[in-house]
């Protein structure tokens, strides 16, 4: 199986590559570019919130419809063009073949197609900013009827309607799903069929398990949304009436189809990052992952439960009040397996020999912040309080406290952990810690105060609160300003990461093959792993977390090494 290193042209090595690592890098770097765009949008509308009506540096005036567009696209981009490519496609591509000990994905060409489809989807989305209607501005949830008849022309021709911002956004999302489905099939098939000898299911590292569970959740839940989105597209372009009550349709139907996917999607995004934590925490605690099998069972349980929680997004949308109780209970129940997973991670620390390193700092920061995000979910999950808090900044702060640690702390933990493996270089530590602390502090100062703005009654997606004399008061005005300034600092802090990335990659110190003394198979490969990954296929003798085994001198036992 070992590939001989053959000369590849620049194009076949970095652009039209079928190598899983290159594709992972393509996904991740595209995701980071989209994150920069999403961050820029956030900068513009946050600036507008703190200083309404003022000229925004390097942008100018922000009109009301642009505000809506920017908020909408910020959400869309961060979920579907940042979190999905980086967490699912990026982690999946980088980690699965190396961690299960194979040379590449099962379907390398499909893998390449998956990335290029993704890139096209990103281009379609960005292009939607430049069509006559501008990008879609009716919130990332795209609720009809606004998403159907939000434009001036009541009876547009098919081609005119096809180039509306809303149509393009649906097409972009559809392409993105196609791409993730192709990638996802690859992940599952590769994990099932291409494991190294001895890599039994209960020896597969948690990250690989979780990426696969996330993929399966995605595949099960995405169908209804695709159907719902195409009905929406038909309503826009062909003039059908699926969501038009005047013609027998129902706008609430879309909400159900959307959240049937939309809520499981949260776990699709969460599980890969949790898998990464499951790799990092045992390494730096020098201790087996606490309850490895049980964690996997808990994740499978959460996958099942993830399809009975969706309507907690619709408590006040006019659903039957009795139904709300059912979804309240579902929401409570799904918090239990995740609480269990986090508790198991924390239990791994107890009795360990803890070394705080950069990846560990991000991992611990993730847990700390996610704790706030998870616990504030308790308020929203209780449907009575949701009557008041729904669609306020309390919700905004809550989901940023879940998604930001998930996406960015999860990504940075993985980045600082595996950078030596995939580049063969060491990162600058001091810069890394500075990046960590600035991100941690500015994230909190951006979003913590917004909880209070939400409790004070500030509702979402408002570009200017001047009209609302009872909520446009101190201290909320000051909080907005602090949040905005912090958000700008948070975005600027990321330049440290980019600088560290580029400088360390080009001129960093050469890294050891297994700098963290970890057990999983990727550390057996060279740094960076060549095309084909392993010189000889490793044989696996035990689980991924045999740290500090008694009766052994070394405190780790790589998966491919037989115990003495």
């Amino acid at each position, binding site marked *: 199986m070992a590939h001989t290193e053959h000369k590849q042209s620049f194009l076949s090595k970095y652009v039209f590559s079928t190598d899983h690592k290159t594709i992972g890098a393509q996904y991740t770097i595209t995701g980071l570019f989209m994150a920069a765009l999403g961050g820029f949008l956030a900068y513009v509308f946050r600036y507008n919130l703190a200083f309404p009506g003022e000229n925004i540096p390097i942008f100018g005036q922000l009109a*009301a419809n642009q505000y*809506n567009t920017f908020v909408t696209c910020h959400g869309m981009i961060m979920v579907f063009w940042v979190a999905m490519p980086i967490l699912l496609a990026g982690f999946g591509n980088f980690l699965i073949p190396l961690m299960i000990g194979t040379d590449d994905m099962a379907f390398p060409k499909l893998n390449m197609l998956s990335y290029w489809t993704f890139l096209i989807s990103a281009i379609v989305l960005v292009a939607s900013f430049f069509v006559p209607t501008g990008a879609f*501005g*009716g*919130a990332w949830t795209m*609720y009809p*009827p*606004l998403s159907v*008849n*939000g434009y001036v022309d009541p009876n547009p021709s098919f081609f005119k309607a096809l180039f509306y911002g809303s149509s393009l956004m649906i097409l972009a999302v559809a392409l993105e799903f196609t791409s993730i489905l192709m990638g996802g099939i690859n992940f599952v098939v590769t994990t099932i069929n291409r494991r190294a000898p001895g890599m039994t299911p209960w020896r597969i590292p948690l990250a690989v398990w979780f990426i696969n569970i996330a993929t399966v959740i995605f595949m099960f839940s995405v169908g209804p949304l695709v159907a719902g989105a195409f009905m929406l597209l038909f309503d826009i372009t062909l003039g059908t009436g699926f969501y038009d*009550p*005047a013609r027998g349709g129902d*706008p609430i139907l879309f909400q159900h189809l959307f959240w049937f996917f939309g809520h499981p999607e949260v776990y699709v995004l969460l599980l890969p990052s949790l898998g990464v934590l499951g790799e990092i925490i045992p390494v730096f605690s*020098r201790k*087996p*992952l*606490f*309850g*490895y099998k*049980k964690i996997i069972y808990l994740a499978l349980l959460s996958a099942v439960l993830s399809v009975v929680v969706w309507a907690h997004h619709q408590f006040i949308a*006019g659903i039957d*009040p009795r139904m709300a*109780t059912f979804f309240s*209970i579902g929401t*409570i129940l799904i*918090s*239990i397996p995740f*609480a269990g997973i986090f*508790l198991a991670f*924390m239990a*791994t*620390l107890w*009795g*360990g*020999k*803890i070394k*705080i390193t950069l990846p560990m700092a991000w991992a*611990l920061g993730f847990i*700390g912040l996610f704790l*706030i995000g998870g*616990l504030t979910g*308790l*308020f929203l999950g*209780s*449907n*009575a*309080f949701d*009557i*008041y808090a729904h*669609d306020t900044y309390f919700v905004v702060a809550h989901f940023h406290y879940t998604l930001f640690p998930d996406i960015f702390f999860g990504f940075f933990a993985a980045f600082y952990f595996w950078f030596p493996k995939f580049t063969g270089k060491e990162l600058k530590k001091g810069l890394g810690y500075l990046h960590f602390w600035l991100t941690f502090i500015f994230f909190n100062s951006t979003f913590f105060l917004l909880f209070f703005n939400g409790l004070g*009654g500030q*509702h979402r*997606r408002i*570009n200017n*609160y001047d009209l*609302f004399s*009872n909520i446009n008061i101190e201290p909320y005005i000051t909080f907005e300003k602090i949040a905005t300034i912090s958000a700008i600092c948070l975005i600027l802090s990321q330049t440290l990461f980019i600088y560290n990335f580029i400088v360390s990659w080009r001129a960093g110190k050469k890294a050891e093959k297994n700098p963290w003394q970890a057990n999983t198979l990727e550390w057996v490969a060279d740094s960076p792993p060549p095309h084909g990954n392993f010189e000889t296929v490793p044989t696996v003798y035990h689980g991924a977390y045999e*740290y*500090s085994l008694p009766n052994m001198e070394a*405190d780790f036992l790589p998966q491919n090494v037989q115990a003495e």
Partner: protein
Amino acid sequence: MNIFPENVSTYGQDIDQLFWLVLVFAGTAFVISVFILLYPLFKNHHSRIQRAKYITGEGKAHFKWVIIALCVLTMSDFIILFAEHHTWEEFETLPQQKDAEYIVTGRQWNWAFTYPGLDGNLGTADDVVIDEPNSELHVPLSKNVFFQLKAKDVLHSFFVVNSRLKQDCIPGRTITRWINFTKEGKYDISCAEICGIAHSQMRNFIVVESQEKYNTYIDSLYKQHSATAGGN
């Protein structure tokens, strides 16, 4: 502590109290979790420890702690659920006694108010519709006031911050909610569901006044209305 805006409805207080109840549970869980997270970072710092303990956590002896914690968590969750269920019912169930009723229709971009007119019934010819920017809906104090919530074009959400009530309005449906105001005054009605370009400008008022003042207002409103109607 004034983290909420002033409450002026009979049931608003229950929402505010629910917040503090959940905060007690969430706060306790937070403090305990932070302790579990941070304590080993100091106690088990690598400079103090020779070798980590080999604990897989697969056996009952160790994993039972996670199970116990999860049971406590589930129980607290259900306590919250029971506590809040009564508040939920209070908001979502209409009281027996109906003292006044109006139709509130969201449209791009204003709230339109329909008074029942002299015959006291909504949906009849003498209904008085007010659909102007910044218009006021006058309602009596300390009465069970019902709102038939509708939407003309897209989704809107009827939100009166000071009453704590929020309800989406759906085209093609009528959803009835109620408020019993406890204090006279003029309060904002806003729209909490994005409804297009001027979503931020969707602001009207609800004016709560004593029964006498309310009656005077209604009389003059109806008189004015029949005068203009007669003129046609």
